[in-house]
């Protein structure tokens, strides 16, 4: 029973003193609750997508040795609000030669595709709008809706650059669906269910219970999925549909004001969605280390709420960390060419993700869960993960140690320009 039914039943019992199973207006109350939930989700998307844009600009700023927005509100946290209000009040231009209905509808369709994905995201043990038993399939299907919107925007704008953007994004999204589906198939094989909650429940709180560290194939599948997800979210190095230096602004070139805001909105939220999917499918979702979901369900009152809040936090932290990685990738890498984009997908990601499915199947047959081999495998994979983190930390340290030595040397000298410094 998901949270919506739960709340609806609670309402019916306490307010209307009726039995939800036989009461004739149950559907109405449920509809109202769903409406409220949708509004809350919308607010969440808005409140999340906005700050993500601020975070991205600040991180980009630091990476580029500058500061980023810091004038609006403390450290510029209200920057997204200023952008939003301004865009909202800007003139909404429709080019004279545009295909008006398509042009007008496209941003909302893109937004719908993105927003629909929130329905099955498991924020916590009890917090999911609808725990569909075909959750993963639904996710794959609803995120593809975005491509229709982008294509409509590209075609409807009656601009050749926009058309290029639309067509590029269609080709890209359709192609990258395949490796991302195969990678998620690995998860489904391990979890034995398509339900998003089921997938989280099949993992545990500790890293060695996460799917990513289950075996080497899952480890690789995570990166394959993550790459494919970046491509589906139109992010660098796969941001061809809006490649600024090639096709100016791509599919959104003719959009202004609020409609353009919706595209931006969808983009920021999309980053978060793909991070969230990676987090629940591979990184254990909301699972709290050391506490089984049943134990949480058994608690009552504030204790229950506390555990819930902790689980949401864990999920949000995991997702936000991945958002950060996506942002960092964006400000590091150049962009692929169209043919290279397709080669990356069909010659590298697709065969490799198929291989991962095969590998997971073989290991499922050979290594029984919970056995000694399984434990060794998990331990080794966690070790590998730690090694990756350690190596990158050392590399980072070495990178700026050169700089620090230089800065020490320069210190005390009268420089009229400010060299960037270590904090």
């Amino acid at each position, binding site marked *: 029973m998901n949270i919506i039914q739960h709340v609806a039943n609670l309402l019916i019992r306490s307010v209307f003193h009726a039995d939800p199973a036989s009461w004739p207006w149950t559907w109405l109350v449920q509809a109202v609750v769903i409406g409220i939930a949708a509004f809350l989700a919308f607010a969440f998307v808005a409140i999340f997508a906005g700050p993500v844009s601020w975070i991205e600009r600040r991180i980009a700023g630091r990476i580029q040795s500058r500061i980023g927005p810091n004038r609006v509100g403390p450290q510029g946290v209200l920057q997204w609000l200023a952008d939003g209000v301004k865009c909202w009040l800007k003139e909404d231009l429709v080019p004279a030669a545009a295909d008006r209905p398509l042009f007008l509808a496209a941003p909302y369709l893109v937004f719908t595709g993105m927003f629909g994905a929130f329905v099955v995201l498991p924020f916590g043990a009890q917090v999911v709008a609808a725990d569909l038993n075909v959750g993963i399939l639904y996710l794959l299907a609803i995120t593809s809706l975005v491509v229709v919107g982008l294509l409509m925007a590209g075609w409807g704008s009656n601009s050749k650059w926009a058309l290029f953007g639309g067509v590029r994004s269609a080709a890209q999204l359709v192609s990258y669906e395949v490796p991302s589906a195969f990678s998620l198939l690995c998860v489904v094989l391990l979890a034995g269910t398509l339900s998003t909650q089921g997938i989280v429940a099949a993992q545990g709180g500790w890293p060695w219970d996460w799917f990513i560290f289950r075996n080497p194939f899952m480890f690789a599948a995570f990166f394959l999925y993550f790459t494919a997800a970046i491509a589906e979210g139109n992010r660098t190095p796969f941001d061809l549909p809006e490649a600024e230096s090639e096709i100016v602004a791509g599919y959104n070139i003719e959009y202004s004001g609020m409609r353009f805001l919706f595209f931006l909105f969808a983009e920021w939220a999309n980053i978060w969605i793909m991070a969230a999917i990676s987090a629940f499918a591979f990184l254990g979702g909301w699972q709290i280390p050391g506490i089984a979901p049943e134990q949480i369900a058994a608690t009552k009152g504030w204790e229950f709420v506390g555990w819930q809040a902790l689980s949401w936090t864990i999920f949000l932290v995991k997702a936000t960390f991945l958002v950060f990685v996506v942002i960092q990738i964006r400000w590091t890498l*150049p962009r692929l060419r169209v043919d290279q984009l397709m080669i990356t997908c069909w010659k590298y990601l697709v065969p490799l993700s198929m291989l991962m499915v095969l590998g997971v199947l073989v290991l499922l047959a050979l290594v029984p869960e919970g056995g000694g081999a399984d434990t060794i495998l998990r331990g080794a994979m966690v070790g590998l993960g730690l090694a990756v983190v350690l190596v990158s930390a050392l590399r980072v340290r070495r990178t700026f140690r050169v700089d620090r030595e230089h800065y020490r040397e320069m210190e005390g000298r009268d420089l009229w320009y400010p060299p960037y410094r270590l904090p």
Partner: protein
Amino acid sequence: MTPAEIRERVSAACPGAVEEFQADLLDPVLRLRPDRLREVCRFLRDDPGLRLHYLRLVTGIDRPAAADSETPGGIDVVYHLWSYELRHGCQLRVRLDRANPVVETVSDLWPDANWYERECFDLLGVTFAGHPGLTRLLMPADWVGHPLRKDYARPERYHGLPTSRATVLAEGRAAEVAPAMHDTKAQPIEGYLRLNMGPHHPATHGVINFLLETDGEILKKATPDVGYLHRGIEKLAEQVGYVGTMPYTDRVDYLGAMFTNHGWALAVEKLLGVEVPRRAEFCRVIASELNRIASHLISTGSLAMDLGAFTPFLHWIRERETINDIMERICGARLTYNYLRFGGVSRDIDPETLDKIKHWIDHFEPMMDEFDRLISSNEIFVRRLAGVAVISPADAIAYGLVGPNLRASGVAWDTRRDEPYSIYPEFAFDVVTGRAVHGTLGDAYDRYDCRLREIKESLKILRQAMAAIPEGEARVKVPRPKPAANEVYARVEGPRGECGFYVVSDGTEKPYRARFRTGSFTAMTIIEHLSPGLMLADLVALIGSLDVIAPEIDR
């Protein structure tokens, strides 16, 4: 081979073609009969003893008949030829009838003559018989008159737009009349999508228009359409005189203003016969090499930005800011330096500034390694550039590519070493050439790689120059220049290659004709040749790797 010897050979091979040999000029000139031009040109290019494969410059000089003189006026068309292999060159000239200037084209002998001749047609009205597409290059297609003619009068209005500031102020507000979009469009090719890339496009490095015929992402043809920044600097130079032109040369190549300054100063100093003090030469070299680094930073950084990586560009902008600070100390401006004077430099470099340059170099060298790790060795970046838009050495010479673009194709030619000027022979530095690091020789990556390595060479020169800088005056007082009638072609090695100044003086305080030969102009001509089969994104990489900037093309 000296010009006189070349003249002997030409006279022997094509008897009667040479009308006159002007040996008294600084750069001797062979005056040819217009109807024998092609014959001589073909001989000069193909003769194994001459091999003048590189057409440096084609330009025209309008010489209307003076009121009191009996000699008829005419239009001179000047051809500068050079041979990289034999290291010699010559200048040809034909005198055409001013009322009906017609000469045969040489654009099939040297492909870069195509644009030179179009420019000549545009600005001087010379018709080149047999030219494949003789249309206006720099001015709008519906422009009336040929601006570089001496008797050209500026129109009052162009499509309702006033041409004088006083009229603009008098009319008070933006004119309501919309000028018709001028039409430079070539005929679209049937079955292909016509795209207008530019003149306002993030990747065209200034206001350049590319007419693309595409089949999906693949280009059938890309035709550059330039002139959106044609500011008529050459005509202005005729108006403001030798001294006043110096700040104008800053704007010819705003990323390498020190080199255009230097070229102009060299040309005029040659005309005047002025000796430059040694310390001033060092100042010039130090400022020039700093400027070369700054220019290459923008070019390599913006190439990365064109390929979608924004961060490297901003890192280079940060380093460039420091160079700008140094430049501000040296000459007072960040971009348009106006540093050189005839007979020296405007201001000596003080020891404190030299110290700061040293610190900056120490700081900058590790940054280059970091830049390599961040972008140069990035697999996506390499794949975007390696093997893309390969220019063969022969093509590079035939299309008149210069500087890093030429060297990336494997032709080791650096004006600093091979036609030395200033004090460059005193410094030890390498002429970097393409080395096919990741793909084919002469591909886009080689051009990028050449620029990065040239930065290192410049650092070498900087260190040597700062160690060896002598004491002394940085400027000798030169009276207001008034050179005798003569002609000179002076060249420096700018960041975009050979930066040549062809100056014709007539004994007054103002140059009679000045023509700036810039690297970007010829680099643009090769784009049309390279574009078929490229992808849209490759075109961006090609433009970025050629490092063209609009004012250098249009001047």
